C-alpha cells in the first residue's frame, strides 16, 4: 500500500451505529498530523457548546507523518474534551500504539458516539470490529489487558492494547488510559472521556506494509538520525537512571515539592532517588516501539501476602513525575512504598500525578482539621503509605461524598471542605517542579496545563534576571518548537535531534515535501487553532488563578516574587488572547 503524503487517512468509528468510515482529510501541509490533525478533526466533528460527556464529542488518537519512518517518532496524541476542565485538551503516550496505528494504515482513529454496551474496538489494516465486552465491567487495568489480548492474538508483539480501569468507567476526572501496561495518556482525564463512550479498550494490530520512497535519500537519512541518537551519548541519561535522576538535583535546588508543597527540600530524598530505585528495585528497561533509547524503567515490587514465606511480585513502571507525586508530595521516603502506590494507581486506571497531588491536599487538610476520618475513612498522614493505598481505591470507586468530590480534583474538594489556598492546582494538579514564577504561570495558563507545554521550569533554572517580556517570548517560541514535534508525534526527548531544519530534511527524505516547505506556517496555524479551540470550549484566560501556596514557596532563589509572577501572567494571558482571538468570538 502507499501512503499519500498530502492527506491524512482517518478511521472514524461511530459507536452509536457500530459502523466505521475511512476519511481523507486534505491539507496535510497545514495540519501536519498529531496535535494539528487532532485539532482539525475536533474543529470539524466536535460539539463546542456541549459538555465533555456528550456522546458526540470525538475521542481522537493521532500519529504524525514521520511515525514509523524514523526512530523516536513513537508517540500518539490523544485529543478529547477534558472531563477535568471541560475544555479541548491533549495527552500524549508512547508504547506500541503509534506504530500499531501507522501499520494499520491510519494517521488517526477518531471515535464518536456511545456504545450501547461496554465495548472494545478491534482494528487492523483489514479489520474493524466493535466487540461486546460487558464481562469486563469494573475489571482493573491488568485484568482487562489480559482479556483484551485474546483479540488479534496472531499479531502478538505487533499490536497495542489500550484500556481503562474502574476509574475511567466511573468518570473520575483524572482517570487515565493505560497504553500497553507501562505507558499512559495520563493527564486531563482521557480515561473518563473513553468511559463516557462505554469503551473499555482498543486493540490495534499493525499488520499492514507500506511502500517507501524510491532512491537512497530516505535510507541515508534514517541511518544518520539513528546514529545521532544512539552514538552521540545524548540519550544515555534517559536509559540509565531515566527521569528519576532529577530527584536529587531538584531537591538540592530546593525545587522538589514535599508534603503538598509545604517544603521544597527534605533529607529523606535518598530513599526515593533515581539511584535508589536503580540499585534496589530496577528490574529492567523497556522501550516504545521504534525507539532504541529504552527509557521505560520497570521496578520489581515484591510483597509478602501471608505470614510465612509467601511472596508475590509485580512489575511497576516508574519515572520522575510518579515518584514526585506519590513519593515526595506524600512525604514518602521508601522506594518500595512508592511502587506499591503506583501499582494500585495503575490497577484503578488513575493518573498518578493528579491522584498523588489530590491525596497530598487531603493529607494537609486532615492535618489542619478541615476533614477527619469521617470523610477520609482511613488515616491520611504524610509518610504513611497504607492509608493512601486505600484512598486510591476510594477515589476510584467514589466511596463517599468526600471521595466523589476528590475524584473531580483537589480544588473541587477544597471548595466544599476548605483549603483552597493549599490545593496545588495549576490548571490541574501540579507537576513536580517548584522552580519558580515562570513554571507556575506556564502550567496555570498552558494549553494542556502540562510541564511539557513549554520548558518553563528550565527557564526558571537558567535565568536569574526577572524579565517578564523575555520569559513570555521564551514560552511562546518554545511552545511552537514543541508543536512541530507534537505534530510529527516524536518523543520530546528527541527535540535535540529533531530541530526544525532536521525535521524538514527528514520530511523531504520520506516524501512529505509539501509539509517540509510549509512547516513554519503550519506551526503558527496549529498553535493558534489549539488556543482557539481551548477558548471556544470554555477556557477563560481572565479567570485563571494561582493558589496562595505557590506564592509561599521558597526555592534556591529565595521567596517567590509575586510582582514578577503577576507580570509574567499578565503578558502571557495577553499573548494567549491574541492568538485565540477570544475577543472576536
Amino acid at each position, binding site marked *: 500500500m502507499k501512503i499519500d503524503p498530502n492527506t491524512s487517512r482517518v478511521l472514524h468509528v461511530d459507536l452509536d451505529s457500530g459502523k466505521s468510515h475511512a476519511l481523507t482529510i486534505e491539507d496535510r501541509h497545514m495540519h501536519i498530523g498529531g496535535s494539528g490533525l487532532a485539532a482539525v478533526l475536533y474543529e470539524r466533528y466536535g460539539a463546542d457548546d456541549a459538555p465533555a460527556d456528550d456522546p458526540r464529542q470525538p475521542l481522537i488518537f493521532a500519529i504524525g507523518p514521520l511515525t514509523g519512518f524514523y526512530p523516536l517518532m513513537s508517540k500518539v496524541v490523544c485529543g478529547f474534551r477534558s472531563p477535568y476542565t471541560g475544555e479541548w485538551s491533549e495527552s500524549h503516550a508512547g508504547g506500541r500504539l503509534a506504530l500499531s496505528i501507522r501499520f494499520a494504515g491510519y494517521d488517526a482513529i477518531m471515535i464518536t458516539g456511545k456504545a450501547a454496551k461496554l465495548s472494545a474496538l478491534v482494528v487492523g489494516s483489514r479489520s474493524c470490529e466493535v466487540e461486546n465486552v460487558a464481562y469486563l465491567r469494573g475489571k482493573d487495568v491488568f485484568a482487562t489487558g489480559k482479556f483484551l*489480548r485474546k483479540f488479534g492474538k496472531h499479531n502478538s*508483539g*505487533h499490536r497495542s492494547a489500550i484500556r481503562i480501569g474502574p476509574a475511567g468507567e466511573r468518570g473520575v476526572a483524572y482517570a487515565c488510559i493505560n497504553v500497553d501496561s507501562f505507558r499512559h495518556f495520563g493527564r486531563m482525564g482521557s480515561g473518563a472521556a473513553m468511559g463516557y463512550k462505554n469503551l473499555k479498550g482498543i486493540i490495534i494490530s499493525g499488520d499492514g*506494509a507500506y*511502500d517507501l520512497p524510491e532512491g537512497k535519500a530516505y535510507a541515508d537519512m534514517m541511518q544518520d538520525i*539513528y546514529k545521532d541518537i544512539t552514538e552521540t551519548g545524548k540519550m544515555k541519561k534517559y536509559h540509565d537512571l531515566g527521569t528519576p535522576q532529577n530527584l536529587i538535583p531538584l531537591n538540592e535546588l530546593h525545587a522538589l515539592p514535599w508534603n503538598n508543597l509545604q517544603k521544597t527540600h527534605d533529607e529523606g530524598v535518598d530513599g526515593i532517588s533515581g539511584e535508589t530505585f536503580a540499585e534496589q528495585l530496577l528490574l529492567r*528497561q523497556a522501550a516504545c516501539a*521504534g525507539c*532504541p533509547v*529504552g527509557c521505560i524503567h520497570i521496578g520489581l515490587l515484591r510483597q509478602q501476602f501471608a505470614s510465612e514465606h509467601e511472596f508475590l511480585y509485580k512489575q511497576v513502571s516508574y519515572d520522575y513525575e510518579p515518584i514526585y507525586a506519590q513519593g515526595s508530595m506524600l512525604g514518602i521516603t521508601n522506594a518500595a512504598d512508592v511502587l506499591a502506590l503506583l501499582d494500585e494507581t495503575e490497577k484503578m486506571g488513575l493518573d498518578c500525578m493528579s491522584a498523588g497531588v489530590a491525596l497530598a491536599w487531603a493529607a494537609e487538610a486532615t492535618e489542619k482539621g478541615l476533614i477527619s476520618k469521617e470523610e477520609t475513612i482511613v488515616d491520611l498522614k504524610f509518610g504513611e503509605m497504607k492509608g493512601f493505598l486505600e484512598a486510591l481505591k476510594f477515589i476510584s470507586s467514589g466511596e463517599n461524598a468526600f471521595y466523589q468530590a476528590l475524584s473531580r480534583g483537589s480544588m473541587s474538594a477544597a471548595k466544599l471542605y476548605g483549603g483552597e489556598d493549599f490545593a496545588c492546582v495549576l490548571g490541574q494538579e501540579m507537576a513536580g517542579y517548584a522552580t519558580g514564577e515562570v513554571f507556575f504561570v506556564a502550567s496555570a495558563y498552558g494549553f494542556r496545563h502540562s510541564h511539557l507545554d513549554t520548558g518553563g521550569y528550565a527557564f526558571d533554572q537558567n535565568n536569574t534576571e526577572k524579565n517578564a517580556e523575555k520569559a513570555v517570548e521564551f514560552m511562546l517560541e518554545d511552545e511552537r518548537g514543541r508543536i512541530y514535534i507534537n505534530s510529527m508525534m516524536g518523543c520530546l526527548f528527541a527535540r535535540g535531534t529533531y530541530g526544525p531544519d532536521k525535521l524538514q530534511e527528514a520530511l523531504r527524505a520520506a516524501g512529505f515535501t509539501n509539509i517540509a516547505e510549509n512547516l513554519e506556517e503550519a506551526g503558527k496555524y496549529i498553535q493558534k487553532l489549539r488556543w482557539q479551540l481551548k477558548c471556544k470550549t470554555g477556557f477563560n484566560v481572565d479567570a485563571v488563578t494561582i493558589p496562595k501556596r505557590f506564592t509561599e514557596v521558597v526555592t534556591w532563589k529565595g521567596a517567590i516574587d509575586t510582582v514578577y509572577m503577576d507580570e509574567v501572567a499578565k503578558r502571557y494571558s495577553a499573548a494567549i488572547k491574541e492568538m485565540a482571538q477570544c475577543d472576536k468570538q
Partner: protein
Amino acid sequence: MKRLEAVRMEQCIGCHSCSLACARLVHKKLSWNTAGIRISSAGGLTTGFEARICVACDPAPCAEVCPTEALKQRKGGGVIVKHDKCIKCGKCAEVCPVDAIYYETETDLPYLCIHCGRCVPFCPHNCIELREIPPQDQ
C-alpha cells in the same frame, strides 16, 4: 558463511529497531511484518521478548517445498530468496517449523531472514549477532 542468531534476547528492550531496519533497508518496506526478524512478546510486555527468525535449517523445509526454487537451499543453512521466481503458493510459510516466514497478503510474497546482518548494528543491546557457522554445521 554466517548466520544471524538472536543470542541474548533476555537483554531485549522491545524497541523493534532490528525489525524496522530490516523492513526499511533490506525489504524496502515500512512495516513490522515484512522483516526477516520479528519481535514478539508472549502475553504482554511483562513477559519479555522473543525473536522470530530463520534458524538456518539444512536441509530447509521451505526450500524443499518450494516448487519454483524461489527459495533455494543456502550452503551452511537457510535459503536464498528470489521473489521474481515466486508463484505465490504460500507453502514455504506453512512448513516453516519456527514460524519465521511472513507471507504478506497484498503482494503475495514471503518475507524471511537472508542472514545479511544489516539489522545487527541497529540493536542497542547486542541481542543479535551475525556468527560464523561452525564447520560441523556446514
